[in-house]
């Protein structure tokens, strides 16, 4: 197989020389020097698309470029000095939405679960920098794991939102065409949605489209045909992650932040422990939900079966005073052939969050550095071209940010038990439609654990005292004035507004700080409460939040950080 691939590459990329080696699982490892990062990604994709190739591991290099990576050896030396940190049955590495969901799912069972993340909080990677879409299945390739899990995950969100108390709107997605030329493409998307088993997709005529979204006419749109996908929904991804980990913690999961995985211990081909820079965690299972670093963690277990090539996406948030054009997610459908976009990811469009902020983007750009979340003028220009809202311009942007999607070359999820290291389970390469798929991903990992346990003769019991309910935190701004009054009478802290843009009270911030999973940075407080998320971007409230954090956590002002180690807000006391 390896040789065949090499010949294929020689034809397709004659200017470079790439070596391909396939293993028994048809995982192909590529090595050799490429001329650019984009070319390296193109080579990986080309090979992954070949028949029978399961996935691609890249050892390729780029001429004149050092591909950034983490120094795990230094972390390991640090950790080895420290001895045993914890004993567990299951360790979850990485607390994005996927890791948090797995933690919560497994907390139903009588298992000692330790969940770790390298950052100071949950949801600090892709989970904080995406548009929160609970996708319909019209855009997903049938037969993929993505297709299967996104359809199932999507349906599970209603129950999740109810149990976990996070904001969820099922806004539906209306795609329409104004040009007869695009009808075929729209029908194709309909067929895909049907084939994937998406919930009640409907092909509709122009009039019906106008009935669903009468505002189309206000903007002079003349739909000739539409595709109505009622399953589309929206969440704040970071809020879902917080709700999940809080519920997991309620049910006994131990959370350790600023903890870096740097080695996997195995005995006789099965996991026995995880080395971290904080010490060793003895464990039977390791679940790898490490996002952009998942390939590194899998390699630590001796199983190099995929490579993550980070794909950056830039998003712009618009001031709340500008309202979304439509009540549903509504977009003109343009056939893929007409779009000049990254073929592996179409990127996003005009969207809105459950708190009704317009969100524009993301873009999709391949970058070599997994932590490269820089914004650029070019990418902003790109996403602002998507903007169809005549009321919205660059002037209304309150923040631009970027995140990296943990894409692999197969462009599908990698979920499963490693055949090389037993009880090491990957939940990796989760990119769009990852947020919507997450409930089903967690369920799938749960099944893998249960089946393995059965095979190994371990008994895993359901906990009788599992509590699936995580109460929605108090949101002062949403209450009636009478309710607000009653709340302040009971607890005066709710009468002190800290963040004036979003009307967030000290009471809400205290609730967050004294929760089971402590948000110990300014950004973590922002993700819990929305303090600092409004138009002044913390200009007024950061100093107050800093004060509250220092007081409540019993730390010095100079110890408070924006987002973990090395981001202290204040350097020293003044003269």
């Amino acid at each position, binding site marked *: 197989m390896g040789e065949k691939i090499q010949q294929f590459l020689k034809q397709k990329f004659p200017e470079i020389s790439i070596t391909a080696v396939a293993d028994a699982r048809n995982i192909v490892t590529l090595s050799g020097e490429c001329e650019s990062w984009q070319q390296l990604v193109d080579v990986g994709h080309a090979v992954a698309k070949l028949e029978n190739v399961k996935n691609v591991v890249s050892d390729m290099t780029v001429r004149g470029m050092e591909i950034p990576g983490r120094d795990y050896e230094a972390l390991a030396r640090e950790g080895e000095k420290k001895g045993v940190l914890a004993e567990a049955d299951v360790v979850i590495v990485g607390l994005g939405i996927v890791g948090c969901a797995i933690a919560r799912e497994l907390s139903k069972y009588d298992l000692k679960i330790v969940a770790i993340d390298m950052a100071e909080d949950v949801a600090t990677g892709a989970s904080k920098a995406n548009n929160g879409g609970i996708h319909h299945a019209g855009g997903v390739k049938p037969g993929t794991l993505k297709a299967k899990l996104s359809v199932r995950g999507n349906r599970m969100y209603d129950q999740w939102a109810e149990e976990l108390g996070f904001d969820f709107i099922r806004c539906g997605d209306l795609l329409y065409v104004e040009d007869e030329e695009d009808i075929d493409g729209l029908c194709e998307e309909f067929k895909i949605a049907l084939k994937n088993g998406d919930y009640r997709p409907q092909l509709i005529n122009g009039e019906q489209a106008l009935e669903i979204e009468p505002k189309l006419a206000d903007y002079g749109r003349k739909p000739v045909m539409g595709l109505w996908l009622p399953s589309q929904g929206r969440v704040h991804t970071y809020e879902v992650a917080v709700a999940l980990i809080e519920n997991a913690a309620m049910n006994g999961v131990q959370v350790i932040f600023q903890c870096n995985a740097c080695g996997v211990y195995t005995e006789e081909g099965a996991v026995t422990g995880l080395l971290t820079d904080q010490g060793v965690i003895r464990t039977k299972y390791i679940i790898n939900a490490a996002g952009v670093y998942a390939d590194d963690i899998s390699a630590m277990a001796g199983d190099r079966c995929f490579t993550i090539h980070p794909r950056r996406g830039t998003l712009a948030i618009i001031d709340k005073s500008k309202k979304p054009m439509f009540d549903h997610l509504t977009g003109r459908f343009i056939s893929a052939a007409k779009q000049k976009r990254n073929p592996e990811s179409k990127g996003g469009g005009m969207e809105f969050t459950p708190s009704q902020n317009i969100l524009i983007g993301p873009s999709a750009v391949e970058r070599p550095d997994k932590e490269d979340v820089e914004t650029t003028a070019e990418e902003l220009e790109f996403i602002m071209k998507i903007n169809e809202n005549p009321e919205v311009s660059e002037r209304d942007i*309150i923040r631009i940010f970027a995140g990296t999607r943990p894409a692999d070359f197969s462009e599908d999820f990698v979920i499963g038990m490693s055949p090389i290291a037993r009880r090491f389970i990957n939940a990796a390469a989760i990119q769009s439609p990852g947020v919507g798929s997450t409930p089903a991903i967690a369920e799938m990992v749960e099944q893998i654990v249960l089946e393995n346990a059965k095979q190994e003769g371990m008994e895993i019991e359901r906990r009788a005292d599992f509590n699936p309910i995580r109460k929605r935190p108090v949101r002062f701004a949403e209450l009636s004035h009478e309710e607000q009054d009653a709340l302040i009478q009971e607890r005066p802290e709710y*009468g*002190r507004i800290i963040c004036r843009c979003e*009307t967030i009270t000290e009471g809400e911030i205290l609730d967050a700080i004294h929760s089971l999973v402590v948000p110990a940075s300014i950004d973590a407080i922002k993700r819990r409460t929305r303090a600092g998320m409004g138009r002044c971007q913390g200009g007024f409230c950061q100093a107050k939040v800093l004060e509250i954090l220092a007081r409540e956590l019993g730390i010095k002002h100079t110890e408070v950080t924006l987002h973990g180690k090395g981001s202290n807000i204040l*350097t020293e006391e003044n003269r």
Partner: protein
Amino acid sequence: MKELTIDVAVIGGGPAGMAAALEAERLGVKVALLERNFELGGILQQCIHDGFGLQRFGVSMAGSSYAQKFINEIEKAEMQVFLDTMVLEITEEKTIYACSSQEGMIRLQCGAIILAMGCRERTAGQILLYGHRPQGVMTAGSVQRYINMEGYLPGKKAVILGSGDIGLIMARRMVLEGIEVKGVYEVMSSPGGLTRNIVQCLEDFEIPLYLSHTVTRIRGKHHLEGVTVMKLDGERKPIPGTEKEIDCDLLVLAVGLIPENELSVQAGVEMDERTRGPLLDEDYMTSIPGIFAAGNVSLVFDLVDYVSQSGEIAAQGAVKYLQGKIDSNPEYEKVQYEGNVQFVVPQRIRKGEKEKEVVFFLRVKHPARRAELICTEKEQILVKKKLPTAAPPEMLSCQVKISPGQSPKVQIPETGNSEE
């Protein structure tokens, strides 16, 4: 819920609100002053530098001292002062809903309302700063607060983007605190702050000012490590090849102020795109009769003295309104302007009332020398004022007597002496 009826409610206890509240009380009406902070004074409390009050009191003092003069008066006054009280909602019927930890929710039924919420600073997101988003990028006001109020330093090596007055003041303040200030970079071809601040805060401390420059990239994943600055062409586009890397751990943004009108908009007050404040008449009454605006919520002033003055104008208007001397469904005459004029406030004047004195505030579009400020009514010159120099950061004002039916025009003819 605590319920109150009041003649005039003033929202915001900064210089505009304090002046308005005192003036309203002096005119004999029942006043409530609502302030979100635990003390009165607003942003003046963190302005410990000199330069306030020269116009009004004839002496230059610190911002906090200027505020204290008003606070002392208020302490002697009979008005109700609500501290730590945040207004959440204003209705068109002039009902205010506010919350405080001591009182719970408060419902105030008001005869008239004066909006005096001030302004806020533009942020990194709004000016489209590219690159990473590390700790170490802060508005000048936040830096001022951390250093002057909290007693901490947010960095050791600073770059300032924007030459607005707070940025200039902070340049000097940071040097005095031992922070190395590497330079002030201004997008425009002329400074954003007052000339006296350029001289006293930059030149006297040998801090370089780079006009037509901007920051194009922020470096540093966790903490700011440096910025890239570039020179800009005539269309304010970065000129390739002019990149300069500067190491710093603090980027201070002094890139402009925006009137804080969320409550005004929510109440349904009509806004002016140019000032980003409410559309005002000669009594600083908004489009909702009985709701007035004063200070930086109506337009961003340069000197606090004018802010106080505008508060008094609004208070006099509010009392007039309570006395039924203002038509509740007025017709307006638009104030015209032309030449080197960015905007004029008030933007309109009520028609058909008796002769009155109107104070106009305006800014020029670009710097000029030996210009004239002229206010005319048809062919007749009402006021003429010589302007030896004029620059956009400096607010100009003129007082004009206007007779019923007159429609004034404010103009600064282009002199050809502009300093582009």
